[in-house]
């Protein structure tokens, strides 16, 4: 068979090696999480022992619930404000300050996490002392903020691919601006909104650095709990938690792909 014109020698083997290298560690991690034995280093047969143990661990349960709760709240908040911002910054005549809005919204993508984390630590420390409030509000604020660009980008992409004449047609057919949004814009935008919310959810769920610096005592999320465990001793329990998180991520991603796939 003749080679296609785009063939470059050695590229395919390197690509295969890269895919193997990307997946082998994850596969082994998942594999070891099903280890029946006590010791991480030795394979002693298949078992769900560590999943059961993780499930019984109150700290794991608490931090899992906290993680999911935080991710859900942050995803909803960031998606709502990102949807509004996307509606405000697309499909209208360019206005002064639009670049400023873009830079602000994408700011969390540009600044290293550790820098934002430290800045929030400083800022919130002052509030914690002054107000005496130590609750989850700080984490909610921080997560909602850094999830905004992740929610914004797919929503904006969807909006830009939407035919503006549909809304013109709705207005022509006596729909008020609000009715146009509710009956036409929103239903058509919904897949983009859900996709954005999903990315925001995964982003919040994955965060380690900012959470470590912002959380108060007893506010461990699943990732910070895992980090704390790893600092002491890597255990199979952490592998089991990782496997569950990994599974959740893959499920969310498949759903995201299904939502954003072009119909044709």
């Amino acid at each position, binding site marked *: 068979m003749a080679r296609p014109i785009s063939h470059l020698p050695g590229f395919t083997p390197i690509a295969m090696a890269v895919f193997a290298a990307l997946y082998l560690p994850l596969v082994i991690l998942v594999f070891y999480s099903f280890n029946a034995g006590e010791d991480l280093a030795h394979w002693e047969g298949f078992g769900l022992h560590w999943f059961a143990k993780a499930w019984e661990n109150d700290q794991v349960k608490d931090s899992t619930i906290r993680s999911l709760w935080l991710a859900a709240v942050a995803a909803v908040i960031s998606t709502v404000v990102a949807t509004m911002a996307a509606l405000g910054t697309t499909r209208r005549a360019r206005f002064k300050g639009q670049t400023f809005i873009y830079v602000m919204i994408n700011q969390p993508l540009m600044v290293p996490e550790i820098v934002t984390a430290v800045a929030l630590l400083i800022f919130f420390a002052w509030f914690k002392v002054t107000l005496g409030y130590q609750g989850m509000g700080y984490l909610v604020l921080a997560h909602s903020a850094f999830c905004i660009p992740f929610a914004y980008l797919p929503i904006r992409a969807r909006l830009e691919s939407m035919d503006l004449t*549909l809304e013109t*047609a709705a*207005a*022509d*057919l006596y*729909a008020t601006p609000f*009715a146009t949004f509710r009956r036409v814009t929103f239903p058509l935008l919904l897949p983009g909104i859900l996709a954005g919310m999903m990315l925001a959810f995964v982003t919040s769920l994955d965060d380690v650095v900012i959470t470590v610096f912002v959380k108060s005592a007893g506010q461990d999320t699943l990732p910070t709990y895992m980090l704390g465990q790893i600092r002491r001793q890597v255990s199979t329990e952490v592998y089991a938690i990782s496997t569950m998180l990994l599974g959740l991520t893959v499920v969310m991603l498949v759903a995201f792909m299904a939502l954003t796939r072009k119909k044709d």
Partner: protein
Amino acid sequence: MSQTIAISAQNVIKAFGHGEHAVRALDDVSLDIRKGEFFTLLGPSGCGKTTLLRLIAGFEMPSGGTILLDGADITNLPPNKRPVNTVFQSYALFPHLTVAQNVAFGLEMLGKSKSEVSARVAEMLALVKLDHLAARKTSQLSGGQQQRVALARALAPQPKVLLLDEPLSALDLKLRKEMQIELKRLQLETGITFVFVTHDQEEALTMSDRIGVMSSGHLQQVGSPKEIYTRPRNRFVASFIGETNFLPATREALGYRLDCGIVVQAPASQAQRVTLTIRPEQLRLVPEAEGDVPVKITNLVYFGTDTHCHMSLPDGTEVVARLQSPSDGESGLQVGQGIGLRFLPGALQVLEE
């Protein structure tokens, strides 16, 4: 008089951009569209016809001037408060709604009762012969069917004026012919004023009661298809609608002297130097001695039903005559041959410059 006018545009201006770069899409356009007529805005792309339509619909605001609907000022009303509906070039059917839901949309927005809405939807779908597809998603329809849904949707709220923005341009030739007849039928059945935008002169001539010819933001001429075709006011209208010949001439006491020296008769005019125009089918070829002008044949092009005969006048002016092809296709004419040209009486028109 004012009772019979549906849309009145008065000194309408629309500028895009600011300051130095401002472009006038419409430059002082005044126009009356009568109730119940099929009015066509005809012109090349960029002439301002779609802009005028969008101003009537309320999708854009004019930079100056007034638009009246049934005598009431609607210049600054938003589109949802104007009893005017549009059939869009892209149809703009709501992809998340069924055919019936699309047609019901305007009625629901007007707050009609459920029974009224469903009765009216059924009536409209019957009118456009789509009753059997009511539950379909619009993406499952053919282009022609989508076109019918768009029409039914725009007609359902019984607008005072229906605006159609090049609605047939996406259809193939055969379907376009069908829809032209269909549109005319709908207009007669509903009695609604249609304002139709197109760049296709044939479409305009066959469907319209009256045509407004536009070019570069100006209304060039308004009149019935026959008026526009037989008595074009200026060079643009004459050349944009159908094919024509231009003959430069000078006014004299007894008529107009063509540049080749021959004097011909045409309607009176104020100007000294004028351009006369005559359609190719209004020219006759006769033996050289019997013609108004002696000409030389420069080219013959066979078009099936007719043959185009290109000729040059003694001063070099080129003219084209359209001759019906004989049954054997042989016109008996030859390139290089000298022949006489006769202008049919009353066919020569004088153009304003």
